[in-house]
């Protein structure tokens, strides 16, 4: 693994575990009022958002997709749903449009930048999956013992 990938991994792991702890420790409001099934669903959504935010922060703000992800997180938290999904590139059809939908902030980029951001995004996603898998394994293995 390259130095930057390791650094990214460490950075992301630290942030992610910190948010996990924050999510899991205060369980007061979720356990009592809602159904058990919903608790898990809600927590998983929170964990997913925390994972993406941690990765976006760890990757740095010099990337367009990290900025888009963080701004989306911020706006969502304030209960605002901005439909910036198709702001710039006019709902491109076909594969490019699909890719734009997948990569955060992709609707605003042109093709060349989109591909570049996609490459970086893919790398970060791979790191994210690897770390989350390791965390999940660690938790599940220690809990089962």
């Amino acid at each position, binding site marked *: 693994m390259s130095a930057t990938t390791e650094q990214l991994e460490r950075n992301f792991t630290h942030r992610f575990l910190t948010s996990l702890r924050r999510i899991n420790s205060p369980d007061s409001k979720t356990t009592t009022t809602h159904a058990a099934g919903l608790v898990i669903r809600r927590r998983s959504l929170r964990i997913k958002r925390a994972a993406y935010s941690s990765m976006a922060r760890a990757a740095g703000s010099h990337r367009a997709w990290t900025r888009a992800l963080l701004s989306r997180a911020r706006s969502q938290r304030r209960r605002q749903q901005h439909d910036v999904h198709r702001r710039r590139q006019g709902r491109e059809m076909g594969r490019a449009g699909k890719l734009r939908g997948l990569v955060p902030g992709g609707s605003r980029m042109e093709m*060349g930048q989109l591909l570049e951001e996609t490459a970086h995004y893919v790398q970060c996603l791979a790191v994210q999956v690897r770390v989350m898998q390791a965390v999940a394994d660690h938790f599940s293995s220690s809990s089962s013992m």
Partner: protein
Amino acid sequence: MEIDMKEKDKLELEKRNGDNSMNYQSAGSLTSDWHFASANIDNSALSLVPSHDGQMNACRGDLVGAASSSSASMGEPFGPPVMWDHQTSSQNTGFCDISLGTGTLVGMTTGGPVSMRSSIDGALGMGWNPPSSVLRNSIFLPNAHGILPPSLSQFPADPAFIERAARFSCFNSGNISDMAHPFGMSEAMGHYSRGGGMMQGLQEPFVGSGLKLLSVGQAQKNMMHEGDCSGEASIASLHMDHMKPEDSPLKSERKSESLVRSQDEVKPGMGRSGNDSDEAEFCGSDQDDATMLEANAGKLSANGLNSKKRKRNGQDTVHSPGKGSQLSAEVNKDGSEVQHKGGKSPTSTTNKTSGKNGKHGSKASDPEKEEYIHVRARRGQATNSHSLAERVRREKISERMKFLQDLVPGCSKVTGKAVMLDEIINYVQSLQRQVEFLSMKLATVNPRMDFNLEGLLAKDILTSRAVPSASLPFSPDLPMSYPPLHPSQSGLVTAGFPAMENHSDILRRTIGSQLTSISREFKESAQLPGSWNDELHNVIQMYASSDPQDSQEITGPIEASNMKAEP
């Protein structure tokens, strides 16, 4: 005179770029330089080669200097991309291509930064570009060693130059190539082969005809923000050490000066507007740069880079199989025309005029940053400015696609933009699905344990390295097989979860179904069918052990799916 001017230009470029690992010497020594560079790079780049772990970062990190984690995280995840390989082969840059294409690219197949690739392409397109080749050579060296006779003597070894080079190399691998380009460009103006040579070295469009500065510039831009050049400096100095200051140290000094200057200017700014590229003004004055510049500048300055395209009509010197002598001859010719347009004028509008001036002046004027992207029109192709810009854009996109091809597993045989895009989309979707699945898994698992952050971090890091058995099927193989989960998963869900009894059961079933789906995917990918079953069973047992009453429910559908999956 020509040679002098070229060297002077080189120096100017250096100054601008600051970090010119590739200060190129006079044209005459170009060929030798190249060899030298390649030899040098060999030494320094040897360490770089092995690091490729399929990550762009790996490539890049090595290239820039393993020591320094290039600009913050993945700023420049692209290392010396394989693209160079593609690019070089596609370009008929004769000498340059031959040596570079065969050797270097093979070594660094890992996707380097896209920008890097683009820049490299540009450089390779040049055909000779000892300076650019030097840059690239460093990356590729291990492979191209035999091809290029080490005679890169002209690198200025003055410490200031090295410093600048180091600074210059801060930017990811793409930067390096970018840096190299400006230098090489000035000398090889005439050599730039084709369009697409938009080099945007440190945010500055390198003037290297045929250099793809745009893509590089973009990457550079991102990298610039990080500004982590410390590591790079070490690397750059590494390369520097190998270079013998054959050229007049004064020249190199100037070049590095200009490079630094340009670099510094860019850094504080949004991005280098291709000062370096300006320095690398190429001669090519014969052509009507004006139109090209205008069109190109308009298009390329989208990112704030001033780029000027310069085309050389009817000059396919780059394509001709340039031997060393040929290249040097060309370089000489180009050198005379080369001139550093003055001024760091970040406005693209100045490109046109400066291009013209540069053309005729061909003097080593004060190292101004000209943000031009010189694109050479290919033989028999339209030389319209719009078509040239379009060509550059297309080449940039194809470069990035190639880079992505290396990144996405299982796409090496895929040819064609559409299929490649489909694969990329599938891969991203599968990764996002995995994140969702893992977050659900974590939501169920976490509350059971106490959180010990330090202990978790240590253990997690260790486990992530060791790749625990349970995660083994996921990590390496999930990326490989990312067919949609929906069919199998939905089937299992509907079959196994008739009612929602309690959340734990539901979760276990969901996770179990997802695991089976994923395990089925693994089997389809035909990686390690036997081990997957084992891994899957291990994971399932973990769930089962935690809640014995669900074990039957879990293993039931899982075994069913396993049976289905195993033909």
